């Protein structure tokens, strides 16, 4: 809408006055001052978690060609500043969205779920109600983790003494493999929640029932992420013990 004042929902291009996209003018191609938008909107994507990463990469490259400071080598200072801000936002958005875990965490935050606070609250709530404890060892891993920690302790002792026990290394290797499998399973579990979320977004319903459904999906995703974090930390411990 030509002539529309900047700052409105669909501001006009500072250079030619026509309506513009969030980063550059679709009419004259000029870079625009950054507006606070979320990463999905920046790429023109719906707020869904199943994302075609090949398409994301294509968009990233296409936007890079228009926004990167190298393209503004000869431009005025103001445009160069906007290009720096826009392309740093582009890079941050791409880095976040291309990684499935970062993308999920970002969406949770966007939907008002404070990751750490939430998990703390969740733990307290779980303690109070006797439900599943999100910060503690996931119950299905309890036995495995206990055994693994013993093995790791043994390995550290042996390393200190300069000893070598192939049987122990094999045990730890097996445990590591099992953890990695678990990691894969958790990712699949997360992806199942993605699909539920995406469906809810498609329905765009705002009635209270759907809202609380959506909240449940978000909570389940958080739970999966917490468990996954736990497993990932264990894998890191194993790697550290093996490499040290």
């Amino acid at each position, binding site marked *: 809408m030509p002539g529309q004042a900047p700052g409105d929902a669909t501001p006009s291009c500072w250079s030619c006055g026509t309506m513009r996209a969030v980063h550059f003018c679709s009419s004259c191609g000029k870079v625009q001052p950054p507006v606070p938008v979320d990463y999905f909107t920046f790429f023109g994507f719906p707020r869904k978690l199943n994302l075609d990463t090949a398409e994301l990469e294509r968009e990233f490259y296409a936007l890079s*060609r228009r926004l*990167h*400071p*190298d393209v503004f*080598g000869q431009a005025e200072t103001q445009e160069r500043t906007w290009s720096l801000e826009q392309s*740093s936002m582009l*890079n*941050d958005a*791409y*880095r976040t969205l291309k990684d499935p875990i970062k993308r999920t965490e970002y969406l949770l935050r966007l939907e008002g779920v404070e990751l750490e606070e939430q998990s703390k609250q969740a733990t307290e709530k779980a303690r109070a109600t006797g439900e599943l404890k999100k910060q503690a060892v996931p119950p299905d891993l309890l036995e495995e983790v206990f055994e693994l920690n013993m093995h790791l302790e043994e390995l550290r002792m042996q390393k200190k003494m300069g000893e070598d026990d192939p049987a122990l290394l094999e045990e730890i290797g097996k445990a590591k493999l099992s953890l990695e499998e678990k990691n894969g399973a958790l990712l699949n579990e997360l992806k199942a929640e993605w699909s539920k979320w995406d469906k809810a977004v498609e329905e765009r319903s705002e009635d209270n029932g759907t809202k609380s459904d959506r909240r449940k999906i978000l909570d389940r995703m958080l739970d999966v992420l917490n468990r996954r974090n736990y497993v990932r930390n264990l894998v890191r411990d194993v790697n550290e013990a093996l490499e040290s």
Partner: protein
Amino acid sequence: MAEPIVGIDLGTTNSLVAYMQGDSPVVIPGEDGLNLVPSVVALDENNQVIVGNDARRYLIETPERAVYSVKRLMGRGVEDILEELKLFPFRLADDLQSGEVIRIKLGAKTFTPPEISAFILRQLKRNAERFFGGPVTKAVITVPAYFNDAQRQATKDAGRIAGLNVLRLVNEPTAASLAYGLDKKKNGIVAVYDLGGGTFDISILKLHDGIFEVIATNGDTHLGGDDIDNLLIAIALDDIRGDLGLEFGNEVRRSGEAVARIRQAVIEAKIVLSSQPTAKLDVDLPDGKKYQREISLEVFEQMIQPIIDRTVGPCKQALKDARLKPEQIDEIVLVGGSTRIPKVRRLVQDLFQRVPHTDLNPDEVVALGAAVQANILGGGSDITKEMLLLDVTPLSLGIEVAGGVTDKIILRNSTIPASATQYYTTQVDGQTNVAIHVLQGERELARDCRSLARFDLKGVPPMPAGLPRIEVKFLIDANGILRVSAREQRSGKEAEIDVQPTYGLTDEQVENMLLASFDYAEEDFRQRQVIEARREADTILTALAKGKKNQAWQELTNDERRNVETLEKALVAVKDGDDHHAIRGGIDALNEATMRLAELMMDTAVSTALKGKAMDDTDLEEGPQAGHPVAKAEFK
């Protein structure tokens, strides 16, 4: 033609300047016709700065007036370089304070590493200006990918001191990939292994329709050919102590000249061993003694193994960060002079299970890539208009939080420009100042990371601990240089800084050095003109003294003689001043006044010659009109 933008490779051992000639980047040679300008700076006995090949002889003749490999000192503090000082003949200024930017002694003067680098850049600028026949003020300069913020700032400062507007700092391996990808136009994953004189970088890139996207980079900013040289020097000194006695060995070790000779000999041997099975060392030592030894390739390779093995860790880490297996790398490009060593090539081949590319000149490819990037920044041409470089930050950036822990805000290998915001709060009730300590590095503890800068967010309204909401925002620009701002959100109190490196120069210092370098250059030029004018004045005065003894002097009128003598006195009076205009004026006036004397002398000479007298006695060549040729002062 618009003013050209040049690409500069400011190397540890050699530096080059290149530009885009039509569709291909070319290196601009120096006046000596050579592409490489050795990164050696010396001060001659008249305190004139000598750079490059001409400066190399000073390394041996007057090592206290010369410096090499100064890139190792860029952006570092005294405490950072204690190890270097054991191995390199860097002479620090005597009055250096802790926490101050390093200053190096050259003769009686001292210079910071950016100033010394600026001398090299100025030489390259001159080479380019001579080549284009016009001013060159815009450049792209390359830096090792693994350079931290302080080292990058120092390089940018060097550019400014040299009178260059540094449009972009480009990572060396990435620049190399631009030169490599320019004519290949292939998509795929490329690894660039860059082992130069003083630094090692490994970068893994994805090439996609003209986009050069760096996926991961790693390296060591203190690993290169210098380390091989130092090892060989250490071995030679051991040998000398063994063969010629401990006392003599120690004497050699203390002699700058002897060590410089050994260094030159081991470098030559190293080069020979890249193509021959053995190399001979033959060095003249003090007291007419000699150090002679033959090194076989086999022994050489055993000796350097531990050094080149240090490149393996960074390569593996880069692959891991890129989430790639070696077999997923499509091409390996070798960059840097040290990749000429066959053992290095075999190591790369084993590591990536692929024969590396060796068709590009490893000494020139970085400068050529810088020229390509310069062309892109200048608006591009047909061949570069689809090309775009997406580089990354090599090291994580963060701040120190309570307990001395590093809180990372931007992770390494993030595509730049990059930004990130983190929120913090206070630890103590009523806290009004918050200390922001900016860090770079991968370690958990702040004290193990590189300290980039410290600043205070002041004037936070007193609130109970935990209530203030302090927003810390990091922004890395396309040069990999960081800007940090902090804001207390509840009060809106703000503090912002361009990260001023802990061991960096302030903007004011850089400005002063820039002005000083102009003065310095002009001073050089002016002094040279004075020296040359004085020489010319001496010539004419000597000739006049002889002329006065000639009978032609007597044939002048009294007025003519008086006039000449007045002007002679005037010239003598101004000659020892340092106003070359005044000297020149005196010379011209005296020249004109003695015109008739010269003519008369000429006549006398001819008639004398006719009488059969030898020309020698007539002082013909020494006449006032026949002064010695004087070299025109050149803008240096």
